[in-house]
């Protein structure tokens, strides 16, 4: 289908930072680069900038397509563009590949200037707080004193909240979608299984697989397959695949038989070809470590006392990895601090992945919220 309101052809750029960055882990990065894309125009007042934060496996390519690869559409193309809920005729939208990523920003696959080799396992663990610092420095480069909004789903929603907590004067609105104020034990457990799949792959070589000319494909593939199951719902899997067999009858062997197996293997293979295992490990840790209430004896309301922004919180009924209950905890903390907040639970069958899907009600809500942001 022709997408008439797509942003069209976009290109990625990069920005270099020479001021050392002190990380939460106490490690220091002397210099780093961030790769990013922008859509729309920054207004003369620089008051219309929106930062879109990506989730675990996302990147800076949020909307539009590349001239040399017109099939590579940005991961949130249905949400962002001229006339779309996040309207690029009004806003200057920025997508950044997070530090530690594997799509161009400095991360484990980058060359460490101190050694002349890839960082690999030496790349420090980074947290949402570290990302918030990089967002602020990025804004400084563009002369953006205050983002009109920061928006994200899943891990991106956590990154958005983190900026609102760490640099409250730098953002006016925050949209937190399908996120959580902290991962539950069950959620950390899923991440651990994913990590163990990678860490125990014989091709992992302690994270230095680059110098061994290998990539822990099997581990990364398993990690992605597991993750994928948790991003869907029982109902959506049942309706999409059911118990359908690829070849119509049972073969009584261990080959791929059910359509769901075929789908998961395909997803796992595709991901293992495109993503870096060290980055996957790092991103799951950033998820696990996010816990703004930790420094406040677990009191999330106390943690949000420093926030100043207005919030939109959205959850999806079939999302069991980041359930509506988790979003309600965020809303409670915002209400306790008398911050402006709206919250909606969106009926959906697609599980956690719902936040990436086109849904009329979901998109109308985001549009309504964005329309009321003054620039």
């Amino acid at each position, binding site marked *: 289908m022709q997408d008439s309101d797509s942003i069209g052809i976009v290109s990625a750029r990069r920005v270099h930072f020479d001021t050392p960055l002190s990380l939460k882990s106490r490690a220091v990065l002397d210099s780093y680069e961030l790769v990013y894309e922008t859509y729309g125009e920054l207004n003369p007042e620089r008051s219309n900038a929106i930062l879109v934060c990506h989730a675990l496996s996302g990147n800076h390519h949020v909307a539009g397509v590349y001239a040399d690869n017109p099939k590579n559409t940005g991961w949130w193309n249905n949400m962002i563009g001229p006339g779309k809920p996040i309207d690029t005729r009004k806003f200057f939208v920025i997508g950044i590949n997070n530090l530690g990523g594997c799509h161009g920003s400095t991360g484990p696959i980058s060359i460490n200037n101190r050694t002349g080799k890839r960082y690999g396992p030496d790349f420090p663990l980074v947290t949402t707080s570290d990302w918030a610092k990089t967002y602020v420095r990025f804004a400084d480069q563009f002369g953006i004193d205050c983002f009109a909004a920061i928006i994200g789903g899943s891990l991106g929603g956590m990154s958005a909240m983190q900026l609102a907590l760490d640099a409250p004067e730098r953002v006016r609105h925050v949209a937190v979608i399908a996120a959580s104020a902290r991962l539950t034990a069950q959620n950390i457990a899923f991440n651990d299984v994913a990590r163990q799949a990678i860490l125990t792959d014989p091709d992992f070589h302690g994270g230095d697989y680059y110098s061994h000319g290998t990539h822990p494909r099997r581990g990364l593939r398993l990690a992605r397959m597991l993750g994928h199951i948790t991003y869907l719902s029982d109902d959506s899997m049942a309706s999409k695949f059911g118990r359908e067999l690829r070849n119509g009858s049972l073969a009584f062997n261990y080959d791929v038989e059910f359509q769901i197996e075929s789908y998961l293997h395909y997803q796992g293979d595709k991901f293992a070809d495109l993503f870096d295992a060290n980055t996957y490990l790092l991103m799951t840790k950033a998820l696990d470590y996010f816990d703004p209430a930790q420094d406040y004896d677990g009191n999330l309301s106390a943690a949000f006392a420093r926030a100043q922004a207005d919030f939109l919180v959205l959850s999806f009924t079939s999302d069991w990895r980041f359930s509506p209950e988790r979003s*309600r905890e965020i*809303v*409670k903390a915002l*209400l*306790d601090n*008398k911050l*402006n*907040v*709206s*919250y*909606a*639970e969106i*009926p959906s069958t697609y599980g956690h992945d719902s936040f990436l899907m086109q849904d009329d*009600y979901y998109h*109308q*809500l985001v549009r*309504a*919220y964005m*329309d*009321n942001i003054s620039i």
Partner: protein
Amino acid sequence: MTTTEISRSVLTLRPDFATIAAWIKPGSSVLDLGCGDGTLLHYLGNKLDVRGYGVEISAHNILACMQKGINVIHSDLESGLSGFENASFDYVILSQTLQAMKNTENIIQEILRVGKEGIVSFPNFGYWKNRLQVAAGHMPVSSNLPYQWYDTPNIHLCTLHDFEQLCQKHKVNILERRVMNHDKKVAFFPNLFGILAFYRFGHAA
């Protein structure tokens, strides 16, 4: 809705909303339970500098509130107000929703837990035309009770006397009562001539 349309709708505020708005002190905080499309909160915010949140369960209404720029929280009133702290609002409003709730007693208690004062409005089942229809052998159907018995959401209808008895039972202190017949105040036999009842109440002294 454009800004002009919104300000026009504010000028022609429904009489029942106007009655409630007259009780709200400027600059106060309000929680509007079952806030509908946010018209009342929008008015209170614009005219009285009231800071507030609406609570809604209907997707249609939540969207309408967000389009007006009203804070709205998706929540089911039947499960109480656990997302809200004690005494966190100056007023908690329940406008023409009480009669449609299952957990009537619980919501009255929750209103006074979360709010310093509560404001409740409901259709008076004791209105003479309702009584007449019952006397004639039928459940009342009118502009204020526009449903047949088999499709009505109104499962807990009451009269002024009934509501005041419930307040007594829960040691709810009625501070003010206003009874309306369309846009006219009713002072004479309100339980007979009043169509809509409004109560402002607080904790027992």
